């Protein structure tokens, strides 16, 4: 089956996913984390009950995989400045303290699981390197804000 044909099959599911779920999330990094966390790490299959109900489990999984790649590509090719902004939006949207998120992401390398399955090795390397730098910059900014607050 050609790629074009497969995309036609999953396009309605992708549109549904974009408009009902992904658009409600604050920024592309949040979308990337959401999509990656909907994936079973053992099988690589994605699950989304609503989408599977309207279409089928296979179509829902394929649509989610395609959207995952789409979001990943956008983040891969955005500038470091934009990536920092997206990462900042994601961190603010979590209910955890920014310092804790930054520390755990940096030390555990949790962001590594956000890479789509069908991803070029070089693209993954570039993305992971950029996230690493973005995290370091955000941590520096966070530390300087804390220092300012303490000295005030």
């Amino acid at each position: 089956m050609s790629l074009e044909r497969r995309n036609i099959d999953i396009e309605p599911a992708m549109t549904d996913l974009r408009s009902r779920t992904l658009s409600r999330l604050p920024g592309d990094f949040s979308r990337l984390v959401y999509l990656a966390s909907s994936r079973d790490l053992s099988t690589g299959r994605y699950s989304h009950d609503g989408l599977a109900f309207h279409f089928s489990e296979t179509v829902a999984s394929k649509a989610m995989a395609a959207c995952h790649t789409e979001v990943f590509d956008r983040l891969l090719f955005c500038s470091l400045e934009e990536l920092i902004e997206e990462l900042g939006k994601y961190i603010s949207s979590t209910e955890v303290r920014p310092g804790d998120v930054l520390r755990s992401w940096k030390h555990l390398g949790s962001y590594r699981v956000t890479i789509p399955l069908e991803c070029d090795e070089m693209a993954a390397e570039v993305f992971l390197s950029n996230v690493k730098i973005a995290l370091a910059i955000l941590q520096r900014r966070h530390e300087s804000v804390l220092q300012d607050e303490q000295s005030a």
Partner: protein
Amino acid sequence: MSQLLPYLFLGLLLFAVLAWWVWDTIVHRAAAEVLAPHRSRVKSVASHRDLGERIFGPEDWDFVSRETSWEIHRMFQRERTVLAISWLRRTRLQVSQVMRAHLAVAQKSEDLKLTTEIRLAMSYLLFLVLCNSLIGWIRLLGPVRARKIVGQTLQWAAQLRGAFEQLMARVDPESCGVVGPNFNRGTVRS
């Protein structure tokens, strides 16, 4: 006679380095590919050329040098150096794949022009030398300063690829699609 000895030694040394590069690129990497075939089958998300632009593009460095401390500058340089070298190695591998494919087809062909083949082999050797020099250059100075020379080298690589494809088309039209559309066409912005 003894005055010529240093030149002879230098010549031999250069030849040995060249031979090692060719060995490393053609034979070693070919074996590595056989051992890890899954890598070449992975569907590419982004084109190799775009990734080159992403790695060597000036925007990120401008931002980092403007907005961050020297520690981040150093981290950025270190990270991009690793990426740039990895990317150059892949580019070298792709050119080597074309060369191997060409060699395989040329061995069976009866319509070979010796001068063209020699010129092609020389260009390929020079490309390997330049590619390896670039890796050293990037290690020494970092990818930001080496951006222009990388762009020029890759333009040359793209020309080399064009020449290979023309030759392949002449020798064996069926095997022309050996290198996919993701091959770099040498458009790193300087």
